[in-house]
C-alpha cells in the first residue's frame, strides 16, 4: 500500500512505486465545494512551485483554485475528471485524482501531514 500525505489546502499526495506522486483533493474538500461541474488541469510538463495555483474546480456556485502541495513537474493529468467532473465528488480520494507530479525534492514530503495529522487539522477547523 502506498503512503499518503495531506496538505492544509485539503489535497492528498500518494507516493507511487515509480517515484511519482498522485495528487487529488480530499473528501472533505469535495464535500465543501459541492457539486463540481468543471475541472481545469495543468499542462503536462509544467513546473509548479509549492503553493502555486495549478488547477481549477468550479461548483455550481463558485470557482476554487487547487494549489500544488509541493514543487515539481506535472507528469500526467486525469482527463477523466475533465470529461466527468462529478467523479471528483464521487471518488475524491481514488479515481477522482487530479495530476501526477515528479517532485523536485522527494524529501519535501516531510512538510505534509499524515492522516492522523490531517484529521486533527480538520478537527481544529470545526
Amino acid at each position: 500500500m502506498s503512503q499518503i500525505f495531506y496538505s492544509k489546502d485539503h489535497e492528498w499526495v500518494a507516493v507511487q512505486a515509480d517515484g511519482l506522486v498522485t495528487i487529488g483533493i480530499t473528501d472533505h474538500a469535495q464535500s465543501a465545494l459541492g457539486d463540481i461541474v468543471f475541472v481545469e488541469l495543468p499542462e503536462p510538463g509544467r513546473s509548479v512551485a509549492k503553493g502555486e495555483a495549478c488547477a481549477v474546480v468550479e461548483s455550481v456556485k463558485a470557482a476554487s483554485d487547487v494549489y500544488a502541495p509541493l514543487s515539481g513537474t506535472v507528469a500526467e493529468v486525469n482527463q477523466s475528471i475533465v470529461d466527468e467532473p462529478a467523479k471528483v465528488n464521487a471518488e475524491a480520494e481514488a479515481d477522482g485524482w487530479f495530476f501526477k507530479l515528479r517532485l523536485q525534492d522527494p524529501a519535501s514530503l516531510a512538510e505534509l501531514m499524515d492522516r492522523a495529522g490531517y484529521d486533527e487539522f480538520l478537527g481544529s477547523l470545526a
Partner: protein
Amino acid sequence: MATTPLDALHRRLGARMVEFAGYEMPLQYQGIMAEHNACRTGAALFDVSHMGQAEIAEIQAFSRLVPGDIAGLKPGCQRYTLLLNEAGGILDDLMVANLGSHVQVVLNASRKAADVAHMRGHGVDVTTRFDRALLALQGPKAVEILPEAAMLKFMDASLVRIDGIDCIVTRSGYTGEDGFEIGCAGFDGEALAELLLARGATPAGLGARDSLRLEAGLCLYGNDIDEGTNPVAAGLGFALSKKRLEDGHFLGAAAVNRALAESTAEKLVGIRLEGRAPARTGAEIRLPGGGAVGRVTSGVFSPTLNAPIALGYVRADCAQTGTVLDLMVRDKPLAGTVSALPFVPHNYVR
C-alpha cells in the same frame, strides 16, 4: 448575525449555513444540484424570511415612489415593482400585494432598512413586519402540496388558513416555476415548514435559489440591478406603467422617460457559454478579438441546461440575440452567445 424563525429547523435538517444580507441562511441541504432539480420537477421549499414584509396603509404616497400602476392594483392581486431614486436608479425591486384591508410589500433583505427609511422620508406610512416568516414553495408539484391555495392564479394574493395557521399566500416566486410565497407569524413558521415538508416538499437553500432565478432570467438586487441601474437598461420595461410614465408623477419619472426616449448605453443580456466553465460576477465581456464591451453581473452553471449561463451588461449595439462575445475567465476568453431570456421557460399557472 440575525437568524430567521426557521433557524432551528435548518440546523436539524443539516443545512450548510452561510451569511447573506446579515442573516445566517441555508446555502444547501443535500446539494445545490439535487435541490435545483427538485424544484424543476417536484416541489422545493425555501426559507426566505430574511426578506422584509411590511404593510402600507396609504397607497397614494407610496405610489409616488414606484413606476407601476399600484393605485390600480385590484384587491387579491400582486405586482412586481421598483423603488426608484430621482435619477431613475433602482433602490430596490419588490412585490406589492393588495390584500383588501391593506397593501403588503416584500422587500429584499439587504435593502429593507434603507427602503423603510426612504418610504417614511417621503411620507409613506409603513408598518414593518420583519419578524414574520416567509416560505417559498416552488415547483410543478407545489399546488399538490398546497391545495388550500389552488384557487389562486399567477400573481394572485389572498389570506389563506393552512392547518390552522393564518397565512398571506401569493402565487408567485423567484424560480420561474409555478408556486407560492407564504407569509405567516414568525412563531408559526417552523410548524408551517414542517407541514409542507411532511407533505413532500424538498428543503432547498440559497444556492439552488440563485441557479433557479438565473435560469429564469430574473435579476438579483445588488448583482444585476442597483442604485446606478436604470430599469430600461435592466430590461425591466414590463414594470413600467404606460399611464404612470405619461403622468410622470413618480420619483425618477423624468430619468426613466429619458432612457425610454433615448435608449441606454448598455443593456442587460443573457449569455450562454460554450464549454463547461462558468463566468462569474465581474468577468469582462469583449467582442471576439476586440475591446471590452461589458461585464458579467451573475453567472452560474445551469443544472437544467447542463451548461454555464450568465447575465451581464453589454454595450447596446452588442445586445442583439445571437451576438458572439468573449467572456474573460482567468485571463482566457470563453466564447458565449447573447441568448433570449429566460434561459429556461417559465411555467406559471395563469
